[in-house]
């Protein structure tokens, strides 16, 4: 690979990473410049992504040299080219929205710094060709989402929400570590292309690991709960997290692992069903949300469910199309709701009711977005969903997916009815924060651009375009949807949407069900059981293991005490002997004061000195006894050695 081409990809990753790090290190000094730096960086990323999509570069940095493909290696192919361009455009739009949406006194350097690192991590994730590189991007992305969700750390609960998101996605990330180990064990390399080349049991371990990791990142069942908490983050973060990064990464990974799924039947089936059921359940959850941001969040998990279903069904073109179209529309809708949140000070449906009428330009964009989300022909998600369904085998799966599509139209209808309804009284406003009562023109432009782009992906319905996508992905044989299927799904969507719009009140009855609480899914993520186990372990540690060690210590101390007592007895004995010798000496001295006397005296004082020194170690300090014993033991051993 020529150096110039490699450097395109290297720059694509390093530029936002370096700019982001620089912003973070500079801190608040860089707040004023942060927006422009981020905009310049994302514009460059977009440009480089387009170039990379054309020249398909590869680059690598060494890591593990003892095995093949142990490097941090990146390369661009059809799938990653599409992802990169989408990532560049979406992040550019989000940066533009962020500059107008963040309050003037916000810590912008920190915000855009983390945002750029987030983008860099995602671009590593989608171009990685080895497992170390994939894990690098994958985990850094998770950490950045933690930092961004907890951006307003002064507000209670935000950091906790970040922790929930990070710990949940990380518990799924363990699957990727396991997959890496399994690939190394099964193929002797760490390359992603080895995934489908293994013909032993390790392939199943790797597949399981990848599935878990992808489900966690994409908020599929049973991990969906973290997405609800993640809504604590600033709106631009939600716009990015729900579109081109994080949740998209899971769907992307499954599409990347398609060859592995194709030869591992249970994994494909599991993937398809998890996707379809998530689309259904989270679609129902979305219908029951009165808060617009929560509704959009649930709908993200549901829509990515279709991408996951596509991966399970082997419909890579449909999956990619759905991923891209969803990214655009969801980012656009989050921009709209976020701009209204800033303007009106609330994201509750009571306050945002009629927001589309107050701010008609943004209202138009949001209405179009809802139509796309609902799957109305001839717009984006309608066409891509049909591409996905074309690949689905089995009636049960097909019906589940169709029902999920109907639910999408229902929740889109509910959102539409809210924003286009009669404006709410002023009392419902400013409940979360003081609103600015202003929707900046920049935000409208960004939302409109994103949503129109997503809607335009309806061109996938044209067979020639669909075939072009399949060529891009090297998957020319994937089935195309039949015309009758397309008419049916379009009719279902339009029907459900109009029904919801006609009777919007009926749907709010769901708000009293468990669906409103995300079907109790967040409870699954409760750390309470782990915390209880941890407390138990700590108690055992302090009162069991440590006490046992102390008991042994006390036993030794008692033993030492006994030895000390014996020592004292011996000492007394020596003393007594010395005393009697002295007595004898004194007696002798009365008779004959000669050399004998001196000798005897000498012996006596020597013996007394021995007695004294024998008593000296008896200091009562355990460690001195111990050290003496140890030294004695050591000396004994050395003696033994010398003698041998």
């Amino acid at each position, binding site marked *: 690979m020529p150096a110039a081409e490699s450097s395109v990809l290297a720059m694509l990753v390093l530029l936002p990473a370096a700019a982001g790090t620089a912003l973070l290190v500079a801190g608040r000094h860089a707040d004023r410049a942060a927006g422009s730096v981020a905009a310049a960086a994302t514009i460059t990323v977009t440009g480089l992504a387009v170039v990379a999509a054309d020249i398909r570069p590869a680059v690598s940095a060494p*890591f593990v040299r*003892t095995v093949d493909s142990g490097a941090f290696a990146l390369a661009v192919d059809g799938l990653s080219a599409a992802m990169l361009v989408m990532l560049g455009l979406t992040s550019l739009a989000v940066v533009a929205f962020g500059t107008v949406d963040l309050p003037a006194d916000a810590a912008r350097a920190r915000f855009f710094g983390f945002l750029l690192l987030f983008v860099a991590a995602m671009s590593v994730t989608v171009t990685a060709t080895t497992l170390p590189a994939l894990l690098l991007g994958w985990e850094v992305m998770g950490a950045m989402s933690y930092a961004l969700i907890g951006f307003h750390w002064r507000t209670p609960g935000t950091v906790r929400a970040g922790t929930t998101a990070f710990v949940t996605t990380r518990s799924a990330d363990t699957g990727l*570590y*396991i997959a890496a180990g399994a690939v190394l064990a099964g193929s002797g390399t760490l390359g992603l292309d080895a995934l489908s080349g293994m013909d032993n049991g390790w392939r199943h371990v790797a597949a399981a690991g990848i599935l878990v990791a992808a489900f966690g990142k994409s908020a599929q069942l049973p991990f969906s709960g973290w997405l609800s908490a993640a809504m604590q983050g600033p709106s631009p973060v939600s716009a990015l997290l729900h579109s081109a990064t994080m949740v998209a990464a899971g769907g992307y990974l499954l599409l990347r692992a398609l060859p592995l799924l194709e030869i591992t039947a249970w994994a494909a089936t599991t993937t398809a069903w998890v996707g379809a059921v998530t689309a259904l359940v989270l679609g129902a959850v979305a219908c029951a949300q009165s808060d617009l941001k929560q509704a959009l969040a649930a709908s993200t998990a549901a829509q990515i469910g279709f991408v996951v279903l596509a991966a399970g069904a082997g419909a890579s073109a449909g999956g990619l199309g759905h991923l891209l179209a969803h990214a655009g529309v969801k980012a656009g809708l989050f921009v709209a709701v976020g701009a209204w949140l800033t303007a009106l000070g609330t994201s509750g449906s009571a306050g945002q009711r009629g927001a589309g009428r107050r701010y008609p330009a943004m209202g138009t964009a949001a209405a179009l977005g809802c139509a796309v989300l609902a799957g109305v022909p001839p717009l984006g998600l309608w066409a891509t969903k049909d591409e996905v369904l074309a690949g689905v085998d089995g009636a049960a799966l097909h019906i589940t997916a169709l029902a999920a599509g109907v639910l999408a139209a229902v929740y889109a209808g509910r959102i539409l009815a809210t924003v286009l309804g009669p404006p709410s009284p002023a009392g419902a406003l400013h409940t979360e924060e003081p609103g600015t009562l202003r929707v900046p023109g920049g935000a409208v432009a960004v939302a409109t651009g994103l949503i129109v782009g997503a809607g335009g992906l309806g061109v996938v319905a044209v067979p020639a375009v669909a075939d072009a996508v399949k060529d891009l992905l090297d998957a020319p044989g994937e089935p195309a949807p039949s015309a009758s299927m397309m008419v049916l799904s379009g009719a279902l969507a339009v029907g459900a949407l109009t029904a919801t719009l006609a009777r919007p009140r009926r749907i709010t009855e769901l708000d009293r069900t468990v669906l409103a609480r995300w079907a109790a899914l967040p409870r699954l993520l409760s750390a309470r059981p782990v915390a209880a186990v941890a407390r138990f*372990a700590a108690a055992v540690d*302090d009162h069991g*293991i440590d006490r046992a060690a102390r008991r042994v210590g006390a036993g030794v101390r008692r033993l030492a005490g006994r030895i000390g007592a014996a020592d004292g007895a011996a000492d007394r004995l020596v003393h007594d002997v010395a005393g009697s010798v002295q007595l004898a000496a004194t007696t002798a001295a009365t008779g004959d004061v000669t050399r004998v006397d001196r000798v005897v005296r000498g012996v006596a004082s020597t013996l007394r000195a021995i007695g004294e020194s024998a008593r000296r170690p008896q200091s009562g300090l*355990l460690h001195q006894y111990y050290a003496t014993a140890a030294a004695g033991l050591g000396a004994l051993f050395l003696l033994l050695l010398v003698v041998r």
Partner: protein
Amino acid sequence: MLTVVVFLPAAVAVLLLAIPRIPDRLCPHVWVAAAALDVVLVGWLWWRYADEEAGGGIAFEARLDWIPTVEAGYHVGVDGVSLPLIAMSAVLFLACAVWSVRERQRPRTYAALFLFLQTVCLGAFAALDLILFFVFFDLSIVAMYFVIAGWGHGDRRRSALKFFLYTFLGSLALLVGFIGLFLGADERTFDMVALAADPPLRDSPLAAGLVLLAIGLGLAIKTPVFPFHTWLPDAHTDAPAPGSAILAGVLLKLGTYGFARIAMPMLPEAWERWAMVVVIVGVVSAIWGALVALAQTDAKRMIAYTSVNHMGYVLLALGAVGLAGQADTDAGAVAAVGAIVQMVSHGLLTGALFLLSGVLWTRGRTHEFSQWGGLARPAPVFAACLAVAAFGALGLPGLSGFIAEFQIFAGAIQAAPVPAIIAVSGIVITAGLFLLALQRLLTGDTAIPARVPVRAGAGARRFDDGDGDDGGEDRGRSENRTGPMPDLSRWEVGAVVPLLALSVLIGVAPRALLNVVEPAATTLASVFGG
């Protein structure tokens, strides 16, 4: 040259004690200068290493006869396992020196003691003779005993005694094992290179197993692994911050280093036979350490328990190397590299974490989570450093912990699938506990405990000749302090930031370290090539 690196600190320590004309307040600066010079010399060793080692991996060898009757000599040298640890230790000692520049409590003895400790630690890593290793190993315990008992806080004498007794018991077991190796060798010798080249007790599995048991027990206490770890939290809680940093960063490594340097190459068959036990002990330690850490209410105790977790991963990897030998040395080599990198990484990151916990102590005389909150407001630099260190310790890519843990897991799964998969779940618990710690300390309402007057300030100028050894009391003045929670001082930044920077450097450009480690780790793993 290596001898100079090892004994330079001790020589400076002797100078400090012998020349009372060096004023007390200059002593820490002399200490910093000596530690910095040592780091420079180690840097030179690192730079020359590739040229000096002639195929066998060992460079800068030096030999002197010492106790010729038992073939024990002064034999030192470095290879790809010991050199990174020596470098990490030298850096960590320098960080502790910088951190302690403001130490006012008997600074002369303090500096001398740490310099002495540095010599024995570097010496233990450089030693290529069992008796020499043992002497350094034991002296490190003695020196650390005095550090904790003399400069600690809380119930320091009890903790120090517990530490001393426990680890000393371990060193006795180690000595018994060494003598077993000596007696089992065909040519009676304590020389490590000779023993590794011709492993003793090849034909007597029982004796080899017993010797491994003795050595393993000694090292397991030092490492420490479950269930011999309970001395660790007490010792750490009551030790001064630099003492904790050295204890966790360097002294614990003597245990794991002993496994890689002595137990594995000298008793390969026994290690292979008992590798599953090692793996299980490692996994239990990793999970147990993480769980107990999660339940702690004291920041320093929590960090202490995470050491048990991280050292558990090292044991998992080393055990897996023994198991992998039967199948695939490639995966074994990956795990071995991971183990060695983990030792280096843990030294840097946990050293930084303990120094940062010392910030809490100097400001508020407590490490209790419940006493602190919202520190990101008054102390943003502290918050940023703590966050980086915490993410490093939980194994985020981009920092050294990931480089280590990725290789440990990837390499261990083949040899020990179930234990490795259980161990991977430990990274979720560590993620949770570190994020919880960040949440408790840095966010929420700002809470700073009512302070006992702190030692820094005007009292700093006073001559302190050694009677005020009560860590909780103090005669300094605090009224000239500006805020209730001053952010990191220049010295504190100077101590912590280089450690974190090195961790990031290893995280983003691992080859600088791996080029040295990989050959040695491959050699270690090839011992088990069936």
